[in-house]
């Protein structure tokens, strides 16, 4: 079996194993897995409305996945997507309510604000990594909590003691009547388009620019890149900034499309952490991220139908997602088993 095939098989095997584990858990706890997965299926594809909402859910997953994947390609693990997303969400919503401008200026401005906020939140760990060799994982985790508490405090200030901002002006909204009519008035918005464009942007940066080449080189081997005359520190900071910008855009999707406001949060949205799953499943490639985001976004939205239709707690899907990550991360052992299985087949012939 060629390397390419095994690389593709690992995520597929992991997804199948994840779904099997989910079925076993449902069975053991006294639910019917068939009913459960049927409810999940209907929750994803049931009618035009649910399809619209599923696509809406996939949108921030695409961007969060891109953010994690982009950092991974440069050899960095950005667990801070969650925090970057939250500050992006706030920044976009703030620009959305603070001023009223013509749409052609207001919407790009709000989107840009989110990207800049996210980039700034990614810049800090990038700088610390480049200057002080501080591991980015810990810094980004800490930055997540700082983002959560700081935005909550800012929301309180902006809303004069309340726990959510006003609705953003229509001129900053990503919603589109056309998409709403198409999908029986779901909240599907133009952000999906933007997210797909960003998939292309990431591909362009990585595959067609000198910057992308350098980033990947730094990801493979820092010493070699340094020796080849690349500025490793600059590339590390840039990678985190771009990754943070993607994450900030994911926040803009929630601020300008799905909710059209920002409210204070007791805990994380979870989108940033699921972005890790998306990127891993997609093997950190732009196209892979599309598949990963589609799968996890669908699972996540479809799960909402499970309590009503089958009486199963929605957390079952979270369990499945966690198990999938676990198996993808343990790719070494799956690869080993696949190779063994392939080897045995050859012997049999």
């Amino acid at each position, binding site marked *: 079996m060629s390397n390419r095939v095994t690389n593709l098989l690992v995520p597929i095997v992991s997804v199948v194993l994840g779904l099997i584990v989910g079925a076993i858990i449902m069975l053991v706890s006294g639910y019917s897995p068939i009913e459960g997965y049927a409810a999940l299926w209907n929750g994803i594809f049931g009618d035009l409305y649910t399809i619209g909402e599923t696509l809406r859910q996939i949108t921030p997953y695409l961007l969060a996945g891109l953010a994690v994947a982009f950092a991974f390609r440069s050899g960095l693990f950005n*667990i801070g997507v969650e925090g970057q997303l939250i500050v992006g969400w706030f920044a976009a919503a703030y620009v959305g309510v603070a001023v009223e401008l013509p749409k052609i200026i207001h919407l790009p401005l709000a989107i840009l604000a989110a990207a800049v906020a996210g980039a700034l939140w990614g810049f800090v760990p990038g700088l610390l990594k480049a200057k002080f060799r501080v591991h980015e994982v810990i810094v980004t985790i800490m930055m997540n909590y700082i983002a959560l508490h700081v935005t909550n405090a800012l929301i309180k200030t902006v809303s004069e003691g309340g726990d959510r901002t006003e609705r953003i002006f229509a001129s900053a909204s990503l919603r589109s009547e056309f998409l709403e009519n198409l999908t029986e008035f779901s909240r599907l918005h133009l952000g999906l388009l933007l997210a797909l464009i960003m998939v292309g942007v990431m591909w362009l940066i990585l595959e067609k620019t000198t910057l992308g080449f350098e980033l990947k080189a730094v990801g493979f081997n820092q010493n070699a890149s340094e020796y080849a005359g690349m500025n490793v520190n600059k590339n590390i900071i840039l990678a985190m900034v771009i990754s943070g910008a993607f994450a900030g855009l994911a926040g803009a999707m929630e601020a300008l499309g799905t909710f059209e406001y920002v409210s204070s949060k007791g805990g994380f949205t979870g989108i940033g952490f699921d972005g890790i799953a998306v990127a891993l499943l997609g093997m950190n490639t732009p196209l892979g991220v599309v598949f990963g985001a589609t799968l996890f976004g669908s699972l996540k939205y479809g799960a909402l139908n499970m309590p009503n239709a089958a009486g199963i707690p929605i957390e079952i899907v*979270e369990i499945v997602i966690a198990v999938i990550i676990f198996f993808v991360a343990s790719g070494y052992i799956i690869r080993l088993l696949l190779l063994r299985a392939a080897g045995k087949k050859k012997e049999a012939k």
Partner: protein
Amino acid sequence: MSFMDILYFIVPSAIFYAAPLILVAIGGVFSERSGVVNIGLEGLMVIGAFVGILFNLLFADTFGGMTPWLALIAAMVAALLLSLLHAVASISFRADQVVSGVAINLLAIALALYLVKSIFDKGQTDFISERFARYNVPFLSDIPVIGPLFFTSVYNTSFFAIGVAVLAWFVIYKTPFGLRLRAVGEHPMAADTMGINVTRMRYVAVMISGALAGIGGAIYAQTITGDFGHATINGQGFMALAAMIFGKWHPLGAMGAALFFGFAQSLSIVGSSIPYIQEIPNVFLLILPYVLTIFALAGFIGRANAPKANGKPYIKGQR
């Protein structure tokens, strides 16, 4: 309120908030000293909290006052089993340890909530009836100043946590086991050459971290919240991770950092009724532990160096 009154008010509540953090941070020290990054502390704490509360609710009638302590044992076992998953993935399957930790966190909270909803048919459990009780230590609480500060209306769990920290220091720095643990985390190949079983040491270390995180979670749930829901632990595990780093991967350092973070947490909660402190916006107290950890890592507060082999799977024969 005089200054001493304020201290009498804050110090006991700081210790009270710090106890679970100390235990979980010490767990982290064991795991990371052996070279296995454990981001999964949060998830292990969640499972500990859930199992602790569940055990307490189920057996409060049978065991009475002993229930919270027995619940700690149940929580310890549950979290230890979950930590095995992390151990298998990151030691035997050579998975990225951070990714595996993230999976543990997602899995733990999902599994716990799934079970809560299956068993109780609602988003959180009932409140427990048997909690850890506060009490005044006889004689010691009569000592002026120190008595009211450290020995009045205290929880036994706080003394337990501090005891574990001291014990951990002894084990890691004064026993052969501790020396091996540190060797495996700094230079596994050298340790292997000297006949130490790297894999076994790391498994043991991760299991210890699971056990301590489970106990920490159960203490947190049984002293502070009294029930279990999606927001029960809410970042305490990451706070413990921060304490471990701020304490420079040293058990007593981690304890000191945990006490300090407990102090910051209790200030952010009770601070609104204390003069001067109520002037400080709450958000500064809330982000203080995280900001300090970043400063510590950046070397502004003494350099914090992780064990050398931290996060790298050990592959025999690989240079």
